[in-house]
Every structure is written in structure tokens, then in C-alpha cells.
């Protein structure tokens, strides 16, 4: 995992910088460690996503930032002031998870009330309320009481409420919870607009696909600890690869007897075997590491510097064709997985396949999704089992 302190070096470029944040509370007699030493850095002007399974401590962390929960230990700053500095909250917008607005107020009154609570002068509130309701698509409901609002409408109003003080930093806890697809798109657009305006957005969400679309940087929280953190590019770099899908020889008669899958894999392996050394030599300095399991190849082996070009027999994931310490090639059925993000490495392979009269049906750059990263993060490396949801309770086996 990249050290969060290395992501951005100048503290002035950080909206949030946290060190050793912990929270322990008691459930009955047992202490529950909701957060266990969180280090986190959120660059200014970015969209930051915090993800994790239920009970990982995401909401607890956000509540600590918003002074709703008192941390057990906490070092760090938010917008240049220590966490817990109340006046700073005038520059922060917050959408709590499962928020509940007073039902007797109208949408307009809610924005007016919470705007005043955030020390926004009356004249500014009057100016902002209309455009904000317009932004979240509630302008026709400004005079309606919240009592009659659907969940999605309440969520939209919550987002408007988080923006009433024109915050520099917006913390949104599950902003798309209960929102329909159109609403989600609208919210995404609002977030992009906020980013365009140079504001920092801190998102707490379970919806990985949305985070992937929106976020510049993410952190994965598991049982009160940050398991990985960085830009999505950084986090998925090791998993980047190309996949080449190979078809039967060009011009083969449609009624010719089908080759068995194992034999066809061997045929593919044979076609690219002579090029393995060349590939290695001609490739740009590789970025992959041998323990990259995205290629599902062997993770250890000779480190002589020369690519070993040898089939090692049938593995679980397919026929291992070749590997060296930098690039692994795996033939899996009709697909060759090349553990590199360098398209130059792939070209000779394509040529070799064509020379062997095989059809290159598709060449795809592939990388892990946020969901893959997430799933990897919540698997116990020792047991291979998914970690139980919830905070770490003393005496309980994680």
C-alpha cells in the first residue's frame, strides 16, 4: 500500500490529513475498536472515496471529522485546523447517512435554518436557496413540507443542505442511498461540478462502481484500518494486463473437427514460445512485479534475468507458458494474459500468433476494478476467508 504521506507532500495541498485516529467504545463490558490508527490524506480539489464493508468504521471516521463522535486518539487537520475545531465546520458541508430533517419544515425552511446554523448571512441564504434547490431538482418542491418527500427527494435535499454554506470540503455519507438512477446521475453531475469549482469531495459509499467513476483517490477501510489507499490508477497498476483472445487458424473449415481445449492451449503456447525472450528484451522497463496475482501465474521462480520459456504443465488457471521476474504470460483456454500495461510487449505476440496462422479475435487492456480491490481487501490473507463485517471486538477473532 502506498504510504499516504507520499501521495501529497505539501500539507497546504491537503483538505484532510489524519494520523493515528482511533476510536474505542464499550459494548457491554467489551471494548470495541471501531477505528485502529487511521492515517489518511485527502488532496484538495479531489473527489475522495472511502469504502469498506459494513461496520468498517467509515461513518465513525466521518462523524469524528464532523465532531459528532469524540475520537479516542486523533492527530491531524481538516482545512488547516485541528480536527474538532468548531469554526472550521462553517467551511464544511456534511450529508449524514440516514439523515432526518424536521418534518414540519419546508425544503426552503430547512436550507434557511441549517444555513443560519452554519453562520451564512440571511442575504446569502436567500440568494443561494433557489439555485441549490434547482441544482438538486427540487425547485418545484421548495414550499412543500419534508413530511411528503420520498427518500430520494430527501437525499437530494440533504445534498443541497450540505452545500448551503458554499463549503470548501463536502463530506457525503452514502449520498446515493435510496436515489433512483436518474437521481444518481444528477448527483454525479453535482459532484463533478463541485470538483470543477475546486472543492474537495469526501464520499462514503458502498456503491463501488460509482466511486470508481467519480473518485480520484480512494481508501479501503477494513475493520477499523486503512487496508489500501491511493489513486485508482495507483491501486490498480499492478493488476493491469492485456488479454489476447485467440481463435482457430484462419481459413479452417467450419466442419473441421474441433480441437480439444487443452490441445488448442498448447498450440497457442507453442506459437508464442519462441518470442518470449525477444519480448522480454524489447519491452519497455516493466512495471509489474512477480507477485502480481492478476496474471495468475507463478509468483516466485528463477530470478536470472532471462525469461524462462517453458511450459510447466497444466495449472489451475490454465497452461503456464512463460514467466520471468517481470512479465508473466499465461495461456488460459483461448486467452493469453500478459501481465503488463505496455502495449509494445503485446505486438510481437500478436505477430507470432498470426504467423502461426492463429486468429487474433481481440486484444483488450484489462485492469482490476474497484470491486476486485475491495474484495481482495476484505479477504483474510491467512485464511482466505472473507472478514466478518463489523468493528473489531476485543476477544473476537477477526
Amino acid at each position, binding site marked *: 500500500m502506498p504510504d499516504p504521506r507520499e501521495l501529497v507532500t505539501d500539507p497546504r495541498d491537503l483538505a484532510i490529513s489524519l494520523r493515528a485516529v482511533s476510536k474505542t467504545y464499550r459494548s457491554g463490558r467489551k471494548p470495541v475498536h471501531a477505528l485502529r490508527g487511521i492515517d489518511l490524506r485527502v488532496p484538495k480539489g479531489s473527489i475522495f472515496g472511502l469504502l469498506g464493508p459494513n461496520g468498517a468504521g467509515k461513518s465513525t471516521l466521518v462523524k469524528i471529522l464532523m465532531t459528532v463522535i469524540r475520537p479516542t486518539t486523533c492527530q491531524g487537520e481538516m482545512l488547516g485546523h485541528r480536527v474538532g475545531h468548531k469554526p472550521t465546520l462553517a467551511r464544511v458541508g456534511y450529508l449524514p447517512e440516514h439523515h432526518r430533517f424536521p418534518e414540519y419544515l419546508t425544503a426552503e425552511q430547512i436550507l434557511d435554518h441549517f444555513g443560519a446554523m452554519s453562520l451564512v448571512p440571511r442575504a446569502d441564504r436567500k440568494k443561494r436557496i433557489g439555485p441549490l434547490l434547482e441544482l438538486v431538482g427540487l425547485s418545484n418542491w421548495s414550499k412543500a413540507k419534508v413530511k411528503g418527500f420520498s427518500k430520494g427527494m430527501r437525499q437530494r435535499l440533504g445534498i443541497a*443542505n450540505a452545500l448551503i454554506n458554499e463549503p470548501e470540503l463536502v463530506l457525503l455519507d452514502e449520498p446515493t442511498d435510496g436515489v433512483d438512477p436518474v437521481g444518481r446521475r444528477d448527483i454525479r453531475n453535482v459532484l463533478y461540478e463541485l470538483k470543477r469549482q475546486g472543492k474537495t469531495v469526501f464520499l462514503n459509499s458502498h456503491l463501488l462502481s460509482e466511486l470508481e467513476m467519480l473518485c480520484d483517490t480512494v481508501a479501503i477501510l477494513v475493520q477499523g484500518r486503512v487496508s489500501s489507499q491511493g489513486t485508482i490508477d495507483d491501486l490498480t497498476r499492478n493488476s493491469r494486463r492485456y488479454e489476447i483472445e485467440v481463435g482457430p487458424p484462419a481459413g479452417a473449415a467450419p466442419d473441421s473437427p474441433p480441437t480439444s481445449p487443452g490441445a488448442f492451449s498448447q498450440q497457442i503456447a507453442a506459437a508464442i514460445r519462441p518470442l518470449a525472450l525477444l519480448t522480454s528484451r524489447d519491452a519497455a522497463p516493466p512495471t509489474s512485479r512477480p507477485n502480481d496475482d492478476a496474471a495468475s501465474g507463478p509468483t516466485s521462480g528463477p530470478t536470472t534475468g532471462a525469461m524462462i520459456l517453458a511450459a510447466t504443465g497444466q495449472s489451475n488457471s490454465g497452461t503456464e507458458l512463460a514467466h520471468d521476474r517481470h512479465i508473466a504470460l499465461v495461456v488460459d483456454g483461448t486467452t493469453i494474459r500478459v501481465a503488463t500495461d505496455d502495449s509494445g510487449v503485446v505486438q510481437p505476440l500478436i505477430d507470432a500468433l498470426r504467423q502461426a496462422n492463429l486468429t487474433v479475435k481481440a486484444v483488450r487492456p484489462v485492469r482490476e476494478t474497484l470491486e476486485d480491490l475491495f474484495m481482495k481487501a476484505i479477504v483474510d490473507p491467512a485464511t482466505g476467508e472473507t472478514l466478518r463485517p463489523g468493528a473489531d471486538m476485543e476477544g473476537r477473532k477477526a
Partner: protein
Amino acid sequence: MFLQAKAMLVDAYRELNHKKLFWIVLILSGIIVAAFGIVGINDKGLTVLHWEFPGIFTTKWIPEPVFYKLLFTNLGIKWWLAWIASILALVSTAGLFPDFLASGSIELTLSRPIGRLRLFLYKYACGLLFVALQVSVFALASFLVIGLRGKTWEPGILLAIPITVAIFSFLYCVCVLLGVLTRSTIASLLLTMLFWFLVFGVHTTEKSLLFFKERNALQQESTLTRIQADEARAKRRLAENNPKDGVDPTTGLTEVERDRLESRRKRLVELQSTAKPLSRFHTGFYALKTVLPKTTETAELLERALLSKEDREQLRNFSPGANRPDPESGDNDAPFTQSELGERVENETLSRSVGWVLGSSLGFECFVLGIAAWIFARRDF
């Protein structure tokens, strides 16, 4: 800072405005003030609009201004505002803190640039707004009605506003503490009512013990007076050296008189022995009452402010049976009246300073609020 206080007050007003009970209480207050307006007194009896109800209540006994003040303090304050309206106010406001602290709601406010203590105090003040609005309307309307009908413009009536708000606040602070602890409207309301009955129970017990203590003192004084009279009579007879028939020449008393004197002496000893535990119990309850809020005494402060000493005396003498001997005053040689006993109890009550009544109650309120604020400020939501 002012912006936030104003926002919270406006919000509290909107919340109260939304609650139907607020308007129900206000309408009922209006009906009671209207009742002041239509009820009157003249030299023949009570009047309701243009109907007359001849009886003992006439202006000969109670002057018209005193009648209205009494009506206001006894019916308007002691019954309506201090009891019924306070219960309704508690029902209306008991949910303010539990709703405020509910998950999803508290985060919206705690995440604002406002300290928790200030937030807590603003919210508490908002709860008092309910009663302050109600009682202000009631007191102002009563002031006008009493002025117009009783021909007496008594600004002291407006003291009902701080006094009633204070009474309500003594209970509301308990309700807030319970609301912060339990986060349940029903639990905080029911437990506050229970606490109120406890306070009322302590007050009633202390008042009863005071009554018995004063009666015991009067009985002792009365019995002692009779013993002294008997002894003086005996001495006089002995000094006259002229014993009458049936009088014992050594004691100067007849057999009947001697028995009666003996019986009185025994009674005096009995009364003195009863006085000690009575006084001890009374002191205990008085001490307990000192640390508890004094809702009834606080309500009576208004009566103190509105009624002069003469008014009181007149009323005491007017009360039915006031001049009758107290049934426990013994034989009729030197009886004391219920009016005398009432005066003794009243004087003792009036001797309790405003500082004691309000100071100790406000002390209790500060203590309870302090605990509630401390919990609120330290809690994770």
C-alpha cells in the same frame, strides 16, 4: 452566534406552531381569561354575564379587586398554569430533546460551527419558549380583563410570566435530563410526571407535618394556659382562705377540677412528647424539600406579591368556619380557632424567603441541567 440563537428560536417556534397542542393550550387559556371576564361579584353575590347568583360571596366580604386577584392567582395560576397547562406543556415539549437527539437528526446540528454546551442551552431555552409564549398571552389578557372588570390595574399580574416559566423549568430540566439519558419521549414524560408527584408528595407531607406541628404548639399553649388558669384559681382560693363546699382546703380545687387539672397536665406531657418526633419528621421533610424544586411555593409567590397583609386577613376571616374553635383545641376554656391555626401555618410559610423558595429551586435546576449538559457534551452520537 446571534444568528444561530435566532435560527434555533425560529425553528422552535415553527415546531411548536406545528404541534396542535400548542394551539389547544392557547385556546384553553383564552377560555379561562374569558371566564375571568364574564364572572363578577357585587353586593348581592356572584354574577355571570347578566345573571346573578346571590350567596355569601359578596363585595361586603371580598372587594372586587381582591376577588379578581384571587381568581387569577388561585384559578389562573395555581390550577391552570401551574398544573393543567404545565402538564400539557410537558406533553408538548417532552419530545423536543429526544427528537433532537435522534439518530440522523442530531448529526445535522452537531456538525455546525456551534459548541455543544451552547447548543444544549439554546435548545433548552427553546423548550421554555412554549410556556413563555403561553403564559405571556395569558398574563397580558388577564391583566386587561382584571383591569377592565375589577377596575384595578395590577402590573404585578405580569409577574406570572417569570414565575410560571420558573415552575415549568424546574420540571422541564428533569424532563431534559431524562430525555438525554433515555432518548425516549414517553419515558422522559412519564418519569418527569412521577418526579413531579414525588415533589408534590414531599410538599404535601411537609405542609401536613407543619400543620400538625403548629397545631401541637397551639394545643400546648392552650393547655398550658388552662393549667395556669386552674393553678391560679386554686392559689386564689387558698389565699382567700375561704374554702367553698367541695373544695379541698389543701389544693384549693374541687375533685372534678383536680381530675381535670391532672388530665390537662397529662395531656401537656403527651403533647410535648408528640412534639419531638413531629418536629424531627418535619425537619427531615423540610430538608428534603429544600433540595427539591418548590413548584407550589413558587406559584404562591405570585399570591404573596398580589395580596396585601390586609387582603389575607380579610380572606382568612372570611373562610367558612374560620372563627370556629378547632376541634382538637380541647375543652372550651381557652380554645383556638381554625383561623388562628391557619395564620400560624401561613406565617410560617410566609417566613420562608423568596431566596429560599427560588434560590434552592434554581440551584436544583442548575444541578440537573449541569448533569444533562455534561452528558450531552460528552456523548457520541
